[in-house]
């Protein structure tokens, strides 16, 4: 059984009755539990289902559909590089290669020391300032390969806030 923080439980209890149907709270609960636990384990999925009087599959099908929901923990830093066309035109692929080199970690993977998960993501709606990079919940813009190397150094030294 998972143990959620009391403030998470409080948020959940406040949120669920606001919706016209209980099921509407499914995606918000996935977010809240993921923020609490770092990812959605089978136990978490079962917990959400039970809380909303649904079957685990009803939650599982959301977890497998929505890209932001994760079934595995990320590294200490979760680095997301937008690769959609406007960011790509601004050099996002080169930015990502710079991160790969600095972290010694292929995009789509977590570094061996568990420090960083590096991922490509789709458009984050800030295309005028590409390449756009997210670290945890914090957004960084205009990240060229050189700036990426600088960010990577700060991540490795633990200087950069991880946004969590």
């Amino acid at each position, binding site marked *: 059984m998972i143990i959620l923080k009391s403030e998470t439980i409080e948020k959940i209890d406040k949120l669920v009755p606001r919706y016209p149907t209980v099921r509407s709270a499914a995606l918000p609960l996935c977010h809240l539990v993921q923020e609490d636990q770092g990812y959605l384990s089978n136990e978490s999925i079962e917990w959400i289902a039970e809380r909303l009087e649904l079957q685990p599959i009803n939650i599982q099908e959301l977890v497998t559909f929505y890209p932001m929901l994760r079934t595995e923990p990320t590294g200490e830093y979760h680095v997301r590089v937008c690769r*959609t066309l406007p960011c790509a035109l601004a050099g996002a692929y080169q930015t990502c290669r710079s991160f790969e080199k600095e972290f010694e970690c292929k995009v789509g993977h977590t570094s061996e020391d568990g420090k960083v998960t590096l991922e490509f993501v789709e458009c984050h709606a800030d295309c005028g300032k590409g390449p756009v990079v997210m670290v945890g919940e914090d957004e960084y813009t205009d990240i060229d390969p050189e700036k990426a190397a600088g960010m990577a150094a700060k991540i490795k030294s633990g200087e950069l806030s991880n946004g969590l």
Partner: protein
Amino acid sequence: MSHQETRLIFKHIDEEGYTNDIDCYVKNGGYDQLKKAVTMQPEDICAEVLTSGVRGRGGAGFPAGMKWKFLDRKSGKPIYLICNADESEPGTFKDRQIIHQDPHQLIEGMICAAFAIQAKLAFIYVRGEFFEGYKILERAIEEAREKNFLGDNILGTGYSCDIIVHRGAGAYICGEETGLIESLEGFRANPRIKPPYFPAALGAYQCPTIVNNVETLCDVKHIIEMGGEGFAKIGTPGNTGTRIWCVSGHVQKPGYYEFACADITLGQLIYDVCGGLKPGRKLKAVIPGGSSSKILRADERFTGKVKDGTEYDWGIEDIPMDFDSLMAVGSMSGSGGVIVMDDTTDMVEALANINYFYAHESCGQCTPCREGVPWMRKVTQRMVDGEAREEDADLLKSIADQIAGRTICAFGEAASWPVQSFIAKFKDEFVEKAQEQAARRKEGKETAEETTLI
């Protein structure tokens, strides 16, 4: 040459000293239009919105007043208002600015709209990646509630309305209004078939629902302020109000610029407003309304008749930036995301990038889209990986033609239009790619070249 922006929605965006809290908003005349709206008859507000001619800013450009008119008011069921703040069309970043810098403008517009359609509950479906935007909206709603601009018995009128901010989780398809509703109800965002599921009749929770874009709902506030006729004076007939053009890609000054509809041409936007291209570069192509819209080739000549019958003969730089002109040249103004590409752009790579996006985002409900879009991705990926074939251009077009029009929602078109238009306009580059690779293969060289866009 300088071109004056008409800043209506973005009046306070990036203004020095302007903050996103309610005190600053009220100090600048905020919520005055709500105070006015609640003294009006709801149907009169709807009539003003219809008169204004305002067209949806999310992509389809459907008249918002007409959408509201379709609302089934006699069902006896609750009515819902949903603000589509998913802003997921690549190249679009206008709603982000409103949410982050002027959230109360959106909330005021929403409560005015909710009052007009007599909704008691409204939702803001905000994309999951807007972590900060979500927090800003939550705080703004609490501030508005404290001042009784929303909640129970708004401003003592007896009308009550609440707003729930609902976060998406990274799926593009949630920008499609029926997919959004499915997502809001706690399901996978598989779009619903219309008919019968027109949201105005059978929307959220099978109740009458209006779904409008962030910018459209902000327009409502300004329509109340200046009246429908006053609003219609901005722009041209059929293309009223302002548009926020989000310019990205190969320009010197990418960014968001608000102009009255048809007040500026595509050439003026690129060269005068956005400072043109990098030195020594030439314009190659423009995707004018978000990545789904059909690409325009820089050396094309566009001739024909606009919707109102006027004949035109334009080069790419002459195209007036409005709904009907961009439609007339075979593309669309869509969500206002203008993606500019200069002559360094490899069109096969650019399409491979776009296809990757749509293959990733197909919800998987309809077979032509679920199977066809990843197939198009595989073909363009193979081409950039060094295995291009001369017949690939025709193959791509053939797949795209078999997706468009054969799916429940417009995603089928959204994914096909880029392929169809890239092939129609740049087929030579797709064929050349294959020929070049064949030549290198003959010489015993590596066929794939280093890519930049995929």
